């Protein structure tokens, strides 16, 4: 028996053995440390938590893990491409396609989106003066669906092979006829589960923002972060529904033999349309919250009111709206009717206008201020620099005939990384440095933060700037090799060096977290940013109590805290008496529902119907239990709240 297992293991490719071993080691280490420090109960309390702050932190943590995984994939990709005709490890052909496909899929769906949803979770209720989100249970469910889908896509590498048709998974390459293994089944099924969670999250935040704002906080008094996250939530609800259909279609195509996307009997372009109807709004789903974060950060670190608040809000709404009408610019070379092409080129160019409004408003927010260069601000400034370049190449891509040259070349790779890393990843770093003290009560180390920024930022430009030129040299995207002698080798090598520099930047970030958590003793004030805070989250203790606001805040303007500072006060007024606070129970049901979905998904991927059915039954059972549960929640008597609040103010 042992021999059989050993033979099987030795027959695996070396990269899978490596992945298996490292995974086993990590698992054992995790179990060991959890047992050694008796943290199992603590872990369970996090898993079952319905507190929006904890859920947000878990979102951030899990997506950061995925970020590392997809980042390592990026390094492997860059190593294979470092030299012409290179043969690095096993990453050629099929294996390379798996790398690029999962790199893209994980980065977009399991890193960019959930990182921002994590920040949304932490921040939105605090910024609008609410005690939690509208549906804490559903919030936890969103998290566990995301993790469940994420595990599925991540497990594909060692269990049957990863998706290998690119992160866009175009049919008919993705259909069973051309990629028979389970790899491309992981893609629609895993994303379906994660996407379901995302839609729930979107609905949750829409309702939270509409219904749970503190008294006096009108829509036009909401901080820009909240505004952008509100619009993002709306985009999520509509865009991810379109994705759900596309994924359903692909699932049917692969599992039940429909021929809608097949070349001979159907029309494979249907997939491209559906995917990009989702795909382009998705770009704004991950960019808008970042815009919001930068608006807050730039205004705080410049000590200035945001320039042109109404036009900023208007720009966000316009971007969200136009975002649904530009998707065909991903399909200019398909051979569509010229009039359709022109229409979408026009809308694409139009989107530059609201984006321009935002850039100039940020610049003029800084004008006349007192700018401090702390890490969150550095990332915001780095964003402006990077995003403007990414934005102008976007307009260049919108000029249709020139796009015939750029399309699917490294020029596009450069553009999309400038936009997505420049906005989303910089935004998340900025937001994490900015709100870390609020989440954990400690400030991240500034020196390491600066090292983190400069290595990551410079590494980023070294990696991706040459790619513009590589694209113009005629290097198509998703190739695992290129011939010698075009001058491509030199640029690719530079790019690879830059990628490693970015990796070092991320290492600095991890070291920073470790050092801060381990050695920093000092607890920060309500507003750790040198009394520059402007919005409600800085009026409560860091970290905030489970109920956030002991008494509801009084909101009479856009920036209540700043106005209080200007009047010489230390904090805003809280209105009303202390009252009994009702908190939601913690619950393990979402966790088990996630497990149910995971089991079901594996059943679907490998087409073992009893497994799929039993997984769905678990899910259904949990839903029924939930439906019949008495939702009592926890009551905090007002005396206790008062005592805690008084202690906090000392």
């Amino acid at each position: 028996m042992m021999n059989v297992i050993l033979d099987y293991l030795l027959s695996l490719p070396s990269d899978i053995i490596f992945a298996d071993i490292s995974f086993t080691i990590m698992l054992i280490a995790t179990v060991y440390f959890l047992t050694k420090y008796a943290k199992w109960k603590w872990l369970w309390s996090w898993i079952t938590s319905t507190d929006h702050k904890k859920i947000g932190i878990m979102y951030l943590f899990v997506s950061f893990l995925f970020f590392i995984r997809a980042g390592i994939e990026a390094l492997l990709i860059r190593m294979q491409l470092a030299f012409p005709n290179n043969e690095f490890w096993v990453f050629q052909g099929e294996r390379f396609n798996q790398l690029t496909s999962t790199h893209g899929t994980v980065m977009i769906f399991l890193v960019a989106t959930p990182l921002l949803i994590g920040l949304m979770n932490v921040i939105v209720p605090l910024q609008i003066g609410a005690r939690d989100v509208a549906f804490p249970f559903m919030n936890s469910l969103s998290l566990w669906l995301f993790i469940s889908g994420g595990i599925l896509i991540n497990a594909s590498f060692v269990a049957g092979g990863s998706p290998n048709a690119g992160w866009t998974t175009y049919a008919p390459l993705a259909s069973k006829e051309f990629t028979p293994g389970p790899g491309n089944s992981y893609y629609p099924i895993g994303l379906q589960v994660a996407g379901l969670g995302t839609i729930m999250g979107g609905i949750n935040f829409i309702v939270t923002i509409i219904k749970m704002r503190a008294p006096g906080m009108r829509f036009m008094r909401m901080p820009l972060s909240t505004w952008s996250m509100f619009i993002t939530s709306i985009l999520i609800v509509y865009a991810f529904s379109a994705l759900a259909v596309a994924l359903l279609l692909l699932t049917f195509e692969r599992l039940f033999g429909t021929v809608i996307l097949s070349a001979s009997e159907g029309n494979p372009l249907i997939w491209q349309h559906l995917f990009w109807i989702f795909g382009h709004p998705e770009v704004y789903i991950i960019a808008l919250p970042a815009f919001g974060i930068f608006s807050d950060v730039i205004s705080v670190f410049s000590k200035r009111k945001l320039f042109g608040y109404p036009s900023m809000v208007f720009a966000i709404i316009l971007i969200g709206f136009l975002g649904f009408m530009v998707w065909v610019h991903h399909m200019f070379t398909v051979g569509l009717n010229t009039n359709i092409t022109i229409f979408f080129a026009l809308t694409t160019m139009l989107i530059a206008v609201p984006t321009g409004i935002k850039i100039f408003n940020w610049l003029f927010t800084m004008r006349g201020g007192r700018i401090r260069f702390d890490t969150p601000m550095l990332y915001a400034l780095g964003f402006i620099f990077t995003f403007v370049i990414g934005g102008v190449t976007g307009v260049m891509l919108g000029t249709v005939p020139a796009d015939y040259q750029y399309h699917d070349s490294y020029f596009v790779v450069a553009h999309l990384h400038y936009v997505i890393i420049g906005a989303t990843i910089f935004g998340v770093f900025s937001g994490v440095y900015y709100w870390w003290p609020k989440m954990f009560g400690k400030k991240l180390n500034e020196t390491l933060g600066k090292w983190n920024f400069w290595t990551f930022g410079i590494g980023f430009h070294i990696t991706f700037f040459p790619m513009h030129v590589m694209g113009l040299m005629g290097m198509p995207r998703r190739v695992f090799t290129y011939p010698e002698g075009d001058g491509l080798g030199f640029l690719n090598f530079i790019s690879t060096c830059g990628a490693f520099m970015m990796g070092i930047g991320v290492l600095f970030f991890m070291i920073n977290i470790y050092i801060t958590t381990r050695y920093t003793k000092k607890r920060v004030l309500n507003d750790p940013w040198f009394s520059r805070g402007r919005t409600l989250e800085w009026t409560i203790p860091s970290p905030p109590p489970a109920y956030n606001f002991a008494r509801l805040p009084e909101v009479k303007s856009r920036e209540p805290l700043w106005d209080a500072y200007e009047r010489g006060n230390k904090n805003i007024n809280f209105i009303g008496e202390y009252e009994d606070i009702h908190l939601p129970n913690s619950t393990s049901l979402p966790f088990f529902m996630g497990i149910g979905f995971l089991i079901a998904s594996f059943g679907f991927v490998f087409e073992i119907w009893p497994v799929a059915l039993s997984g769905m039954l678990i899910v259904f059972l949990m839903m029924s239990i939930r439906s019949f549960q008495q939702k009592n929640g926890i009551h905090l008597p007002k005396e206790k709240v008062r005592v805690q609040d008084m202690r906090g103010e000392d």
Partner: protein
Amino acid sequence: MKRLSKHTNKEIHKLFLSFLLMILLTALAFFLVLYQLISPPFLIVLITFFALIQIVIQLDRFMDIREKEGGYRLTSLIGGSFVALLAIVFLILL
């Protein structure tokens, strides 16, 4: 108590009328198609129009879309319809 029942009686009449209208429209569309009484292009327009009336009845009479505050329900529906319509139009043009 008596006034209440009178008021509610009126409401149930309204519901019944809406239902009757819907059945009527469905039947009409059904017969028009079954016997092909009108030329196809016009027929399609007509039955689509019938369907639209039915949808409006459902939304307005049964689903209470005209809430008192905000208009979020209608907004949500319009947003979804906008995206759906874009998808339909460009998939047909495919």
